[in-house]
């Protein structure tokens, strides 16, 4: 009897070895904080899966007593966000505090007739940036970025919000799908992992509603698009042309958001154009 064996076709894989990822990301947090002169971190704790996963990693890296989690509600924040933020802090044994940003935001809104919900949401997001940096000063800590790769690629965040401005961002190269996988491995409570993701900046808002596509679909499309697979190949995996077009459009409208501000170049020593040094370069 002739033995016939079939090889598995090669394919792109989003699933990761989460213990190995955890080991790497905890080293990342320790070392990247370390050379900057820090051993403590502030994490904006929204009650969502990205901040919970960042807290879980940072607790492993620095010990719970060195992770200052700050919940920053506004009057319109969903009640469950507060419950989940507290639950995450208790679950990982970190310090926890609440800074109500309503007076900061409403102080501005009162001077700004006609401010729209979208603008108000952006003000909330940037008010949290102010708190994140100040809490860093208070605790001699750095506040961590909590953004994931999917939202970064889509530009789906407020530019310079608290998640965007952390000098160190452990989840920045993980798609949302991978953050969920990592969160499960790190024991993030199911109620936090399982709920629909939301920026919680406007009433009734969800990420997938705003984006017009589910994260699980978007992440597979993104991975193939970034690696250079043509549209027809991606459609062949079972996605619609409209889904592929939506993903590509979101990425290609937002490249500016993933860069530092643009400077007019007039010399041969223009920073980041001619004069190139990595951010960790330091002479001694």
């Amino acid at each position, binding site marked *: 009897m002739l033995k016939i064996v079939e090889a598995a076709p090669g394919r792109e894989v989003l699933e990761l070895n989460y213990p190995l*990822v955890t080991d790497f990301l905890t*080293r990342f947090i320790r070392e990247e904080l370390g050379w900057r002169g820090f051993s403590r971190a502030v994490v904006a704790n929204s009650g969502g899966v990205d901040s919970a996963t960042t807290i879980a990693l940072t607790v492993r890296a620095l010990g719970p007593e060195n992770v200052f989690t700050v919940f920053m509600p506004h009057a319109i924040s969903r009640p469950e966000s507060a419950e989940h933020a507290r639950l995450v802090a208790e679950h990982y044994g970190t310090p926890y505090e609440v800074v109500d940003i309503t007076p900061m935001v409403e102080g501005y809104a009162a001077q700004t007739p006609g401010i729209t919900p979208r603008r108000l949401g952006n003000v909330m997001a940037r008010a949290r940036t102010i708190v994140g940096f100040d809490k860093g000063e208070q605790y001699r800590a750095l506040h961590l970025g909590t953004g994931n790769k999917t939202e970064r690629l889509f530009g789906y965040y407020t530019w310079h919000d608290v998640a965007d401005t952390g000098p160190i961002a452990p989840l920045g190269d993980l798609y949302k799908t991978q953050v969920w996988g990592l969160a499960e491995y790190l024991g993030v409570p199911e109620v936090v992992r399982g709920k629909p993701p939301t920026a919680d900046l406007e009433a009734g808002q969800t990420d997938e509603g705003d984006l017009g596509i589910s994260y699980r679909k978007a992440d597979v499309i993104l991975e193939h698009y970034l690696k250079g697979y043509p549209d027809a190949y991606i459609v062949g995996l079972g996605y619609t042309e409209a889904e592929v077009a939506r993903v590509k459009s979101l990425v290609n409208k937002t490249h500016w958001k993933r860069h530092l501000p643009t400077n007019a170049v007039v010399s041969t020593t223009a920073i980041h154009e001619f004069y190139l040094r990595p951010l960790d370069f330091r002479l*001694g």
Partner: protein
Amino acid sequence: MMIRHAVLQLKPEKGHVQKNIERIGQVLREIRGHRPDVVVLPEAFLSGYFLQGGVREVALTQAELSAAMSALYDSLAWDGPLDVVLGFYEQDSGIYYNSAAYLELGGRGLLNVHRKVFLPTYGVFDEERYISRGNRVEAFDTRFGRVALLICEDFWHSVTGMIAALDGADILYVPSASPARGFAGAEPANVARWKSLTQATAAEHGVYVVLSSLVGLEAGKGLVGGSVITGPEGNLLGAAPVFEEAVLLGDIDLARIAPVRYDNPLLADMEAGMPLLMNDLERVMAGLKVLGKNPRPLHGKELARG
């Protein structure tokens, strides 16, 4: 004769050349009791790997490197000579290289400098923007035997190991700096790749391979470590852990090479067979040169040029 090797899989302090030299001294004092004959440090250990234009601010001439390492040796009060393989950015008359040196400290001094030929300039790498290519692969004699130096991607091309082995090298020293990527498997994908490469090259030519791989985070990129010593049958004799500083000790026994090559005379076959293929090698290389001047055949597709 057993040659005691110590692979120093260390994390450099970026841009601090003097501190990194002192760190070598600190570790040598710590492992002095293990009496290494040869210590092997990673690629770009004296400065860190990712420097962009900072290369020119940390690069050393061969004379500066020799002087600094001699001073280190003098400070150690080492018992007898000590051989050191070390990766550094080199400066020579305003031209910069990614180089590796072999020094016999307390003896003949600098024996060889290899300048990296294959400069990765794709993906996360950007070497050729800042440094120039070397153009030599050669074996040389140490007090223990004949060896060669190859740096990182040099070793990913089988032709370099072949040239070194045909030139008589019995040990290939490979300083490297490899940022971790591919987290789906039991170990980072590039670590698995490195292991299989050392095994394939060692077994093909019946040589020892000593891989010294940099560790430490450099702006989010995790230099992966996982240094290995691989024997002439292609067996992994020892492996350092990933991501963390470690010293990998191993005895290299050159007397084993002849019996292993007798079992698998692939190097002798290469000596005999390679001359038969030189015409074809020259033919395809000449063709590449012609194609370099004239675009390759398009095969119905347009050339995409950015």
